[in-house]
């Protein structure tokens, strides 16, 4: 059986990749994908703990996260399309109308 620490390590690597992508990338869709990556990193640790402790609540949480991620993807993609239509760019640094 694969020990718990392996899962957690993978989970934190995934999360760290997500954070790094979020901070580094300028393309809004890549950023969006990085967020998904972070969510899934967390999901992995949820299910790992659930299996380890034989508790279902971790798996239930994962479902919730997936639902929220789906809803977020729907709304987020709509916003991205809308931004692209008005700004004709996907570079977040150029979407700065509210900045001083």
């Amino acid at each position, binding site marked *: 059986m694969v020990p718990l620490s392996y899962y957690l390590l993978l989970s934190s690597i995934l999360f760290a990749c997500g*954070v790094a992508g*979020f*901070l580094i990338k300028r393309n809004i869709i890549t950023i969006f994908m990085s967020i998904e990556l972070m969510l899934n990193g967390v999901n992995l640790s949820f299910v790992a703990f659930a299996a380890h402790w034989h508790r279902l609540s971790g798996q239930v949480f994962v479902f919730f996260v997936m639902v929220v991620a789906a809803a977020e993807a729907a709304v987020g993609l709509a916003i991205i399309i809308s931004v692209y239509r008005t700004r004709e760019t996907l570079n*977040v*640094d150029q979407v*700065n109308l*509210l*900045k*001083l």
Partner: protein
Amino acid sequence: MTPNLNLWLIPILPLAGAAINGLWGRRSSRQAVTAVALVFSGAAFAMALWVAARFWSIPLPYQEFLAHWIRSGTFTVDFAFYLDQLSLVMLLVVTGVGFLIHIYSVGYMGDDPSYYRFFAFLNLFMFFMLTLVLANNYLVMFIGWEGVGLASYLLIGFWFTKDSAASAGKKAFIVNRIGDFGFLIGLFLLIQHFGSLTFQQVFHSIAPMSPETAGAGVLTAVGLLLMVGACGKSAQIPLYVWLPDAMEGPTPVSALIHAATMVTAGVYMVARSHVIFERAPMALTVVAVIGTLTAFFAATIGVAQTDIKKVLAYSTVSQLGYMFMACGVGAFSAGIFHLMTHAFFKGLLFLAAGSVIHAVGGEQDMRKMGGLRTKIPVTFWTMTAGTLAIAGIPGLAGFFSKDEILWRVYQASWIYWVVGIVTAFLTSFYMFRLWFLTFFGEYRGDADGTAGEHGHAAQDADRRHGHAAIHESPPVMLAPLVILAILSGVGGYVGVPGSLGGGNRFDRFLDPVFRSTTPALNTQHNPGETNPPEQQTEGPEPQTSHATELVFTGISVVAALLGFGLAWTFYYRDPQLPERVATDLDGLYDAVVHKYYIDELYGEVFVKPLVEGSTRILWQGVDQNLIDGTVNNSADAARHVSDETRHMQSGNLRSYAGWIAAGSAAIIAFMIWMGVGQ
């Protein structure tokens, strides 16, 4: 059962007058203001007379408790009044002369736009002065003491739009503060050592003590500090400089505050504290020396002044010196006697001078007067009475009181007497100089008497109605003059000394005040003095001294006549002579005219360093650099730090995310490092 005299009414009446005139006077008619001012000050005088009438039927000293003020442990101070022979004399002088001067002011200030303000201040002064003389403890006395200083400041600067008047007021106030500081420290010492400020308690605890012949004890310290206070209030060396400047005030103010009453508060205070001074021979000597020096010094300055009020001001300083001289040799009743007669004749002289100034349209320079004898006869004759009284011509008030003082100081030391007699000569000289310059010879002013246009004096007296000609003052001003002239004439007969066939009743009247706690007087004079002062409390003096006393009386009369003769030679027979003498005595004359450059000296030694120090160190150094600098620099520092840190708030979403990530990482690292959960 002690009858209730309701003493509190006496000071409260003028206060009520001041309040009414001060609050509603602006909107009232002049008649209403006049009525309020005169009724309330007159009522105070009537009350004082009523108290005097009942004086012999009550047990003395009479005390009246009004309210508790301070109660701290065993230390208590009450609002309470105290009446004995000394306070009664002061009470009558203050209310009587004060009332007369109120009447006079109705005429003198008649045209002033701030008529109501003048009377409000004048009544306020009466309130504080009466509080001062009626107080039964030092602290209530101090209220009055400070209050009269305030009233004096307000009235000197009455014409505050005139720069010189405003600064004269400030000068008076500040110089008085120096004296008050000494007074206050003296009071603190009394509290520390005797735990009380009530006259009777303090004196009761001091009474058993023997005189501090060694020279430096508590009583000496207290006495010296009280004398500092008295120097400030009563314009003695070295704090006399404010009084001549105080002549910027209206003339009735000069008469009431700066001649008759307030400036004598110091003498009253020293006399009141006689129990302390009698046991502090060194302090007493200091009092006598200061008094003697001041008397002589001020008289010499008075000789060369040309402003009629300045002559009288220096004369006042000089006469106050006489009073301190008397107190300093233990002859307190002689000092108070002179205080009383001085109130009469100096009040009279000032009022008469005011009448002269009024007559010539605001001119105060005697060189521009002259020949007024026939034009203003009533003023002339009343002023003559005052001049004769102050010069010490036999038969008038000043003669008896001054002679009494000179005789007393001779018994202490002949040096005092010599200076005193020279001062008497100078007094006679400058007063007759004033008299001749003002009333004799040719009129030297502008022909039509519109002298009011030029000079700093222009504001005094009636400024507005252009005087068509020199004219006598209205009856409302002349009546007080006549009354005071009569008092200057007969006021001395209450204290005719034994050598002249009198019983010295004034001395005996005050005797209970000064005798009750007098220690053996033989021990309280300087070792260097050869003649021990006679115990003043013995009844009529021994018959053998009468002849000697008469000789001294003769000498002082001769001095007075010499002064008259010299003034006559200089200013009547040969008006060119003074100028020649002045040229001959170039340096000396110059120094005297410039008042020995004392004002300049004080300016250099005290005022300038103070102003410089305040400017350089306190203003530019402490305030601008230290205080402002601290505030400004901390504000600058805050701005710089903010300038740097606000870059964190870039508005860039990813940098926020970075901060969050870094923060989370830091927290996690910290938790791991601390071993949370294990």
